[in-house]
């Protein structure tokens, strides 16, 4: 099978590639840490701040319930935000890099 040879090291040095990976790494790990921390607040809060979880907010619906429900919306929101940024920035940078390299 005739395979196209790439000079991986030089692509890795390309300023476009470096810009892409810097932006991506900051976004991905930053938001991953945020969402993980937000998630662990739930079991930690339920165990160590039961008073807070008991506060009634809407009729009999309490803070704990709304907080657990918010986990779903935060996850969905983050997923959509990531899709937005990836489609707009990361994919564009990748396209530009590939065009520049004439691949």
């Amino acid at each position, binding site marked *: 099978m005739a395979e196209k040879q790439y000079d991986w090291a030089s692509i890795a040095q390309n300023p476009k590639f470096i810009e892409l990976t810097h932006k991506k790494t900051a976004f991905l790990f930053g938001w991953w840490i945020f969402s993980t921390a937000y998630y662990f607040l739930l079991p930690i809060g339920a165990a160590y701040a039961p008073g807070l979880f*008991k506060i009634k907010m809407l009729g009999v619906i309490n803070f*704990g319930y709304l907080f657990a429900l918010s986990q779903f919306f935060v996850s969905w929101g983050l*997923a959509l935000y990531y899709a937005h940024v990836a489609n707009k920035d990361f994919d564009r940078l990748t396209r530009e890099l590939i065009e520049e390299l004439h691949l």
Partner: protein
Amino acid sequence: MTFKKIIIAATLTLSIAAAAFAAEPTKAPVVTDSAAAVTAPTAPVAPAISAQSATTQAVAATPAQPKKRELKANKVITLSMFAIIIGITLAVVVWAARQTKSAADFYAAGGGITGTQNGWAIAGDYMSAASFLGISGLISLYGYDGFMYSVGWLVAYITVLLIVAEPCRNAGKYTLGDILSFRTNPKPVRAVAAISTVAVSTFYLTAQMVGAGKLMALLVGVPYKTAIVGVGILMVGYVVFGGMTATTWVQIIKAGLLMSGATLLSILVLAKAGFNPVYFFQTIVNSPEIQDHVSKLVLKDGITLTGIDAGQRFLEPGLFLKNPLDQISLGMALVLGTAGMPHILMRFFTVPTAQAARKSVIIAMFIIGAFYVLTTLLGFGAAVNLTPQGIMQVDKGGNMATLILAQQLGADIAPIFGDLFLAFLCSVAFATILAVVSGLVLAASAAIAHDIYVNVIKDGHADQHEQVMAARITSLVVGVVGIVIGLMAEKANVAHLVALAFAVAASGNLPVVVLSLFWRKFNTAGVIGGIVVGTVASIGLVMVSPNMTYPKVVAAGAQKVITAMEAKQALLPAGAQLDELDAKALTTAKSDYEKNKEGTSMMGLDKPLFKLKNPGILSIPLGFLAAIFGTLLFPNKRSEEMFDEIYVRQNTGIGMAKAIDH
């Protein structure tokens, strides 16, 4: 060739249909047997509880004794629906078999699945019968804690989305071994990756098979062994003939059925509350049965709660999940383990681009999240409409809550709707089991056939025909082994196996996947160290955890019963005997004590060494540390030099066509 496949598939359908109907007459008595068995354990419990409430002034005077409940599916309707599902899926298999010609077709559906289809398939692969029936049951009996438990299953997908989905699509081919062997010594790395994949899949598969057998026995009265063999034959049929294409479509169909069932039932629940969520929660708090149920739950912890306060307590944490460290440990295994699950990783090789992989995770997240939100509604709806006491009469773990709810709310419209709805949900549960086990068998066979046979034994020199044959034979073998394990594990305690599968994936697989994608220095020693230590640590910790049976602990429990009963006896007037129930309890306790007083656990222990049921909190850091130390102790120049290649590939997808055509 094609003709032969159609014949095989048709024979398979006929034999299964024949078996189902031939077994029909003999099943009738079994149903009543199993129904009796299910309701029986509640009998000794009910008097014990009322005795307890009599002594406690605090508890409302008369706990309404709900009428005895049992769950009986209409067999004709249910089996017809099963037949329809089997028929549709087998048609898919015949169609898929015609398209499965190369290894890429078999393992990755030729990369021809769209993002949307893959999203539904991921959801179908992931939502097991345990989440469908188990979590809503947990909510119906313990309220808030069940809901809290469900959150981690969705949040886990953030890791999949942000860290593994797109890089794996760009850098991988069919299996975990493909990603890990990229810049390492391929043979040993593929071998350990395959072993860990097979371990994870086996744990998960065993839990699913045993659950499937018990569920089918409970739902339609098929004997446990028949159910396992039936499910097993279908599973093997899907995978062997239809490969990834058939598995994908079975998962899509299942996810569609599951979401329709859950949505329909949720609408009925909400309609009962006038579509007003605040009022819905008000009815939970005000339900006298829920109040009574909670009073008894908290009484075990020595707390007295009654009336509205007890009802409100149902919406607060701590009725079921009592050990926060265990929760955090499980949360870690979910959040990191889902992204290391071989059958989930494999799904990303079926789509053509990283964009499609991204889209598929997002679609899956909306389906899975919506499903868990609906599950809450079903669980609370079951608690309000059926009462926790009524649910426990059918199954003490609450696993049947959703199904009874469907039957009752359907029957409220018209009796026939109750039967139809129940039969529909039973077939959803059936489809759910098939979809999940097929995905697992496919992942395990890919690891054995592609990693071990083709790449380790044959050095990668196998033509397409040979590769597909190897994949089919391996699937058959894996499937048969799955059936045998299912048959043997009927009496085994499998509840911890799902958590164990996630722990192994989180401790063994995820660290090495992340490090090989993002760390320049990472190498062969790191992969092997990480997988071996992560896997062994998870399994080892579970072996010495409270999940195992400790005879001395059982004996100590029995000793307490003996002391209590003897004290009771001493209080009785001379000559009087303990009543029948107490006398029986005393005899059982005495024999339990004698049987267990000298025994030790499987590992020869008197009591658990590791106090948590979930090993993640310790085994995940161990997996990471072993991967890092292994790398640093045995540095490898070639691995470092090749980092640029994998890093460019995983970020940009450059050179990906090679991975697909290969």
